[in-house]
Every structure is written in C-alpha cells, then in structure tokens.
C-alpha cells in the first residue's frame, strides 16, 4: 500500500486540545466508516514518526478528514494539531482496517460507545449512516470529562430521527444535568442495550482502559462477545 502525499487545506478546533484536519487527497480510493490512516512525518534529518488517526467523515470527493487529539508531550499530535501549516503536505497510508468498520448493508440497530477522542471513527459511522435510507437506528453513548470536551457537536445534533446521542460526563457536567458525573456504568448501557437486536454490533472506541471496561460491561450484560468490536487508542 503506497504512501501518498496529502495537503492540509483546513483546520478546525473541536475542543481546546482537539482538531479536525481536512487534507486534499487527489485519487483517494475511498474508505469505509471506521477505517483509519497512518500518517508519516519526516524531519529534515530524516527522522520519521508514524501515528494512526481515524477518518472522521465518510468517503468524499478526494479529500479526507482526520481527528487529532493533542497528547501532552506527544511527538506527533501537538505538531499536527496546531503547527503543521495550511498548504503543507504529510504522507498517509490507507485506508486501513477491515475489522472496526460499519457497512451500509448491515441492517441491525447499532450501538456506538465513545470515550473522548474515540468518537472520531464513530462519528464517521454516524455521518455515513445519515446519508443512507437505512431504517436502522444508531445509538451513541459518548463519555467525556466535561462539556468542553465534546467533539462534533454539529454532526451529533444532525436532527436525524434514527440517531440517538447521549453524552455522559465523568468529571463535571452541565449545571442542570440529570446524571451525576461519573464513569460509564451499567445504568448508562441498560437502556441502549435493550433497544438492540441479538446480532446488533456494538462499536467501542477510546482509551484502552475505557474500551476494556465498557467491553466487560457489555459482555456481563449478555451481549454476545462476537458482536462487540473495539478499537483502543492507548
């Protein structure tokens, strides 16, 4: 699979530390929602760093959108998020990954569970589903620390009657919040899980600890482990 040069054409803030980056990618072969790319940066002295980033949007006209969360002290993410100039190139390899994908032919209702930046590939799935005539419903349970940490508010409030988005806060919620801040637990998953079919997929993405805790909750609740697809962001 070749490395392609793509050019940064747009940068948008999602949260104080997270950015959407849009790259012009002529000849992009398309991709499935959930897939990622590897991004390679080469320094003047030849030093190379490679990191994976999820595609945030469904396949579009020769451009790709990535979601980048700045990792404090990280080698690549702070640079990509805030320093790579508009008009500059990076190399990408992809699209990658056939496991953590949603395909438009899948008929079952879907559960998406996102922790922080894990929302990026799940947003691609929601945005792809929005474009279809599918009758399936999508439920997103989105866990963030505070209201400032929510990505893609516009895409998540798309007005699509098939989409149900619940945001839960782990540290600090909005003033009149009905749910006390805290980690995702059984009580957050019971309702959404009750609206799934046995074969419904659950896609769980975010920090490793979050993904494993949620995966354990879902299997404890009786979801078939074979229907749970996970992607750990470390």
């Amino acid at each position, binding site marked *: *699979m070749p490395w392609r040069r793509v050019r940064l054409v747009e940068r948008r803030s999602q949260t104080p530390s997270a950015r959407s980056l849009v790259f012009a990618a002529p000849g992009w072969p398309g991709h499935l929602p959930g897939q*990622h790319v*590897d991004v390679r940066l080469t320094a003047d002295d030849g030093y190379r760093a*490679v*990191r*994976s980033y999820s595609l945030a949007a469904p396949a579009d006209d020769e451009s790709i959108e990535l979601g980048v969360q700045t*990792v404090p*002290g*990280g*080698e690549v993410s702070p640079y990509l998020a805030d320093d790579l100039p508009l008009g500059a190139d990076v190399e990408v*390899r*992809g699209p*990658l*990954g*056939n*496991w*953590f994908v949603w395909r438009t032919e899948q008929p079952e209702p879907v559960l998406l569970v996102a922790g922080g930046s894990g929302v990026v590939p799940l947003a691609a799935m929601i945005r792809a589903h929005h474009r279809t005539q599918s009758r399936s419903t999508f439920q997103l349970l989105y866990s963030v620390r505070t209201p400032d940490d929510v990505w893609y508010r516009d895409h998540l409030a798309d007005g699509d009657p098939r989409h149900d988005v619940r945001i839960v806060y782990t540290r600090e919620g909005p003033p009149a919040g009905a749910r006390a801040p805290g980690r995702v637990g059984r009580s957050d998953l019971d309702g959404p899980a009750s609206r799934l079919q046995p074969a419904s997929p659950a896609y769980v993405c975010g*920090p*490793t*600890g979050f993904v494993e805790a949620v995966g354990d909750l879902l299997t404890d609740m009786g979801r078939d*482990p074979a229907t749970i*697809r*996970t*992607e*750990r*962001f*470390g």
Partner: protein
Amino acid sequence: MADGTVHLDGNCLAGPLSEILAVEPTTAWWRCPECTRSGPLAGLHVYGPEPGLTVRCPGCSYIALRLVREGEHIWLTVGGGSGAFRFSTA
C-alpha cells in the same frame, strides 16, 4: 502507536503488516495455543513500538506475533519462540 505504556490492539497493525502481507490482516482469526481464547487479530493486545511490536493474547499474554522494523528490513516472528523472517522492503 501510543507514546505510553498502555497497550493498543491489533487494529493498529493494519499499516505495518500491509508492508509484508497482501491480505488485510486485522480480520484474520487466531486461537491461542495456550488458553484457547479465539478472536480476530484486531482484538489482540499490542505493545511497543520499542523495541518492536509485540502482539499478545488478551486472555493470557501468550505472544502471538512480533514485528520489528530495522531500516529497510522488517523482522516477523510468528509465536513467541525464535526464528524470525527478515523481509526486505527496499
């Protein structure tokens, strides 16, 4: 790869393995010879990238695969033993 010590999963192997495998690998099925847990490569736990990528069974940590990049070579060891294949990517 993550900069810290927390593991990732086999989804992140899609790019590196694409350099030596022609078939998309993350959906490959694997059964642990140690604890018999089975599942996709995407679900295995991945540690690294220094000194290379070590891919382990999520149930018992048995080593499924090791992948090390050395310049234009990629060393692949299947299982936890010795005897790596050295692929030349140049």
